[in-house]
């Protein structure tokens, strides 16, 4: 299965990211990770999400990270101490996740609850109610349009926040 191969590749990429201390390389690998993620999403039939992930994860995020790296000019230093506590925390979280997901429906199980509650209305009634073929657009902009208003506000918050943090003082600009 192509999805599994891609997933293993992603895991490998992340492994290299953990090992590497070259920040430039890590950022590029992060971009590759996002592209792999986008491909997996296409394989999982989530085309809208894939398109966004490719443009945001591999595009905007990478550009922003490279820009910030240029401004900071940094290499990662060796850690001063062994990260035992983070390791224990991570293992504990992994334990809870494994415990939890083992009870989930199997991959691509058509009997799973999520395919039988709420969603059928989106898929079956959309033609009469909204008449937009792309169900994702319809749910995004209409059924759950309020979430998207919130999402737009989040983007606006980030934009205004970056202005508040990075705008130069008037004095600095003229000199």
């Amino acid at each position, binding site marked *: 299965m192509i999805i599994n191969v891609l997933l*293993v590749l992603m895991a490998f990429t992340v492994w290299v990211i953990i090992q590497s201390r070259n920040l430039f390389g890590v950022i590029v690998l992060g971009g590759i990770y996002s592209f792999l993620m986008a491909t997996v999403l296409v394989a999982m039939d989530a085309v809208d999400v894939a398109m966004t992930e490719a443009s945001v994860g591999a595009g905007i995020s990478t550009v922003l990270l490279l820009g910030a790296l240029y*401004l900071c000019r940094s290499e990662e230093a060796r*850690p001063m101490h062994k990260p035992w506590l983070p390791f224990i925390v991570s293992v504990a979280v992994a334990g809870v996740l494994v415990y939890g997901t083992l009870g989930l429906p199997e991959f691509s199980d058509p009997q799973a609850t999520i395919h039988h509650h709420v969603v059928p209305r989106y*898929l079956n009634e959309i033609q009469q109610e909204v008449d937009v*073929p792309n169900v994702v657009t319809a749910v995004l902009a209409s059924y759950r349009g309020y979430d998207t208003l919130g999402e737009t506000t989040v983007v606006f918050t980030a934009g205004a926040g970056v202005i508040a943090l990075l705008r130069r003082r008037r004095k600095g600009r003229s000199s």
Partner: protein
Amino acid sequence: MISGGHFTYFITIFLMIAGLFLVIARGNLIKKLIGLGIFQTSVYLLYIAPGKLVGGTAPILSPEFTIYSNPLPHVLILTAIVVGVATLALGLALVVRIREAYDTIEEDEILAVDSAHETEVQTT
């Protein structure tokens, strides 16, 4: 049952944990944000993977298809992606300001600078 049906979940968990580990274990402020990004993106799989149906197609209605993957997680994750990039932009802006104020983006060094400064203030 376990190995076949839950493989995606296990990779997802690995990615999540790797991201989380990077965030809390590393001292470099940019590397932390990269870890945070991986942690957030891996959650996409937790939502999207269960919505996929083998033999189905993307949820764009057309008379040729009858089985579609579940569109609701797609909508949620679109929102999550946007939230992720918004957080990243703010985080990086903060890192740039920190670098200008402290001349380093290593957490240990910043804390050292701060505690040295603090004792200085207290003695004077």
